[in-house]
């Protein structure tokens, strides 16, 4: 999972550094507010701990062994924001000092494992454990699922990052300059390894530590629940406040969406029935599929099912808009708005269900 130097193009690395930066900023601000002058010793020691836990060798079913990242434990005990910082620092020391993961790819590794991993782990854990008592089995199960989900989310991100390389970065003869596999190969390859082995290591260690702490030192499990109570208060006071850089990053990403127009052709496997009758589209499909000619007719099933649902904005451009770039932007705004609305609603429902709101 630690992406070394040379697998991602510098452009991708720069973009991923930029994507991770607002999270680091918010995380440091939040953690500072919570810990005050304690921030330096606490974060340092927990970063050192994550580093050491990354070395633990875990026997897995089937006779193999695997390593965990420890992001599940960090997110559950410290909360997502402190976990982002500690895992990032541990990753940086690994990259600079021990050659695990590249220096240029540090932004990518942090985004995958520290940011996405922490947020997914903490979200899943909170969702599944809800208000279960600290000593309950439900919390152990929640921790297991959280660790497993976090690693696989991180692996998915890494797979996507690998997969976009050959499409954008190749030399004059068409030889990929960096990671050579397209999305259709990179994503399954990353996920199969993590769904089966690496994910299990993280699952066992996260659940195991929670179960151990339940028996011995449940005060540690309470740390983050109290902290979350505070941060929920803070978040409710101002949704804009601490999350401002995230909102700004979202806005920047929205503005950048017309970049999608640069992508040549159609994504592999996302063809419509009309593409099979168009000579140019057929040539593109063939060249993207290892020179395998597509069938002469569109597959009957595709033909039949494609009429089931026609999107209101086909190809990200509503028919009434003439400019493709503007259409893309509008679609992005609309899509992001829908997603945000969905989560706001979900949050309200969840609060209502708990009888807080």
């Amino acid at each position, binding site marked *: 999972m630690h992406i070394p130097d040379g697998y991602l193009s510098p452009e991708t690395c720069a973009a991923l550094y930029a994507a991770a930066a607002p999270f680091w900023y918010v995380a440091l601000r939040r953690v500072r507010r919570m810990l005050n*002058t304690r921030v330096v010793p606490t974060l340092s020691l927990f970063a050192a701990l994550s580093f050491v836990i990354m*070395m633990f060798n875990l026997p897995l079913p089937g006779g193999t062994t695997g390593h965990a990242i420890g992001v599940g434990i960090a997110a559950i005990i410290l909360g997502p924001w402190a976990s982002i910082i500690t895992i990032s*620092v541990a990753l940086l020391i690994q990259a600079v*000092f*021990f050659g695990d993961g590249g220096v240029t790819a540090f932004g990518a590794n942090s985004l995958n494992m520290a940011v996405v991993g922490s947020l997914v782990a903490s979200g899943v854990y909170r969702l599944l454990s809800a208000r279960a008592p600290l000593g309950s089995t439900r919390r152990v199960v929640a921790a297991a699922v959280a660790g497993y989900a976090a690693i696989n989310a991180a692996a998915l991100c890494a797979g996507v990052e690998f997969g976009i390389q050959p499409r954008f970065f190749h030399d004059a003869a068409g030889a990929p300059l960096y990671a*050579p596999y397209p999305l259709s190969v990179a994503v399954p390859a990353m996920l199969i390894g993590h769904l089966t082995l690496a994910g299990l290591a993280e699952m066992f260690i996260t659940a195991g530590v929670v179960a151990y702490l339940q028996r011995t030192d449940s005060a540690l499990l309470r740390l983050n629940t109290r902290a979350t109570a505070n941060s929920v208060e803070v978040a409710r006071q101002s949704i804009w406040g601490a999350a401002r850089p995230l909102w700004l990053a979202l806005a920047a990403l929205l503005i950048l969406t017309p970049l999608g127009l640069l992508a040549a052709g159609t994504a592999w496997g996302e063809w419509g029935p009309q593409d099979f009758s168009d000579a140019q589209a057929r040539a593109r499909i063939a060249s993207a599929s290892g020179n395998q000619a597509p069938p002469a007719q569109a597959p009957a099933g595709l033909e039949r099912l494609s009429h089931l649902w026609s999107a209101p904005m086909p190809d990200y451009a509503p028919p009434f808009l003439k400019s493709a770039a503007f259409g893309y932007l509008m679609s992005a705004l609309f899509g992001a708005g829908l997603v945000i609305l969905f989560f706001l609603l979900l949050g309200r429902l969840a609060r209502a269900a708990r009888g807080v709101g």
Partner: protein
Amino acid sequence: MKAIHKRDIAVDESESRVLLPRTRRRRRRLSSVERTLATIVWRTERAFYAEELARADGLLQHLDPRVKVCGLLLLLLDAALARNLPTIICVFAVALALALLSRVPLRTLAARAWLGAFLFTALIALPALFITPGRAAMRLPLLGWPLTEQGIQSALYLVARVETAVTLSLLLVLCTPWTHVLKALSSLGVPVVFVVILGMTYRYVFLLLQTAREMFESRQSRTVGALDGPTGRRLAAASAGVLLARTFQLSGEVYLAMQSRGFRGEVYTLDDFQMRRRDWLALAAFLLAAVALFWLGRRGFAPPSI
């Protein structure tokens, strides 16, 4: 005195009797505890070796750390940006020359960087030889699979780039004490809080590594035979839990110790680096090389077809 045989110790423990035959195999697989121990020892040794080499008498060791960090990062960037193979090999040659001038034994580089990186990357790049779309250069004798020119080129790019990057980043670590790397980072504009956290983390990594090593060693010395999977997993999780609790306690103590020495949340670093003539010359050489290699790397570059 009668020599104590392992069988004598384990007569009554049914678990051990089942497990004993395994330990008698000539080449026993290492248990997870032993593997963890091996990793910990290996890491610690590696770090100590780097600290030792950083004090050696060579070219890079004599340079200002800021120049070193900037220069090696620029070369790393050159290797990443290059769009043709000869340029990447040039960067690799520069790295090799720097290693030789800094008295870093090539055997160290081969053992610590080249071999591992090559095996890992070659394994990853192997299928690319066949599945990258392009012109077939040759076919495998028996299976008849085509090796495409683009696939071969792509695998070469990947391997060359990875080897070069690994060499450069290892050079920085092998020729600079960690405290100097940190100071260089802070004088190059990285926020002081981050630098201090990095420094403290690095210091406590060794303490926690030692604690973990002692825990696993004591467990290993109390264990006869191999642990089964679930026990091994429970052991790893419990060890992580113990370390976590200790870390928490330790961070409280460290904080109190810092506070009693007057720490109030602000951090200052002593910055006593002085650029000498030699450093300016080295900086100029690094910049020149970086620009030349960048230019070389972009030649023959065609924009991706849209």
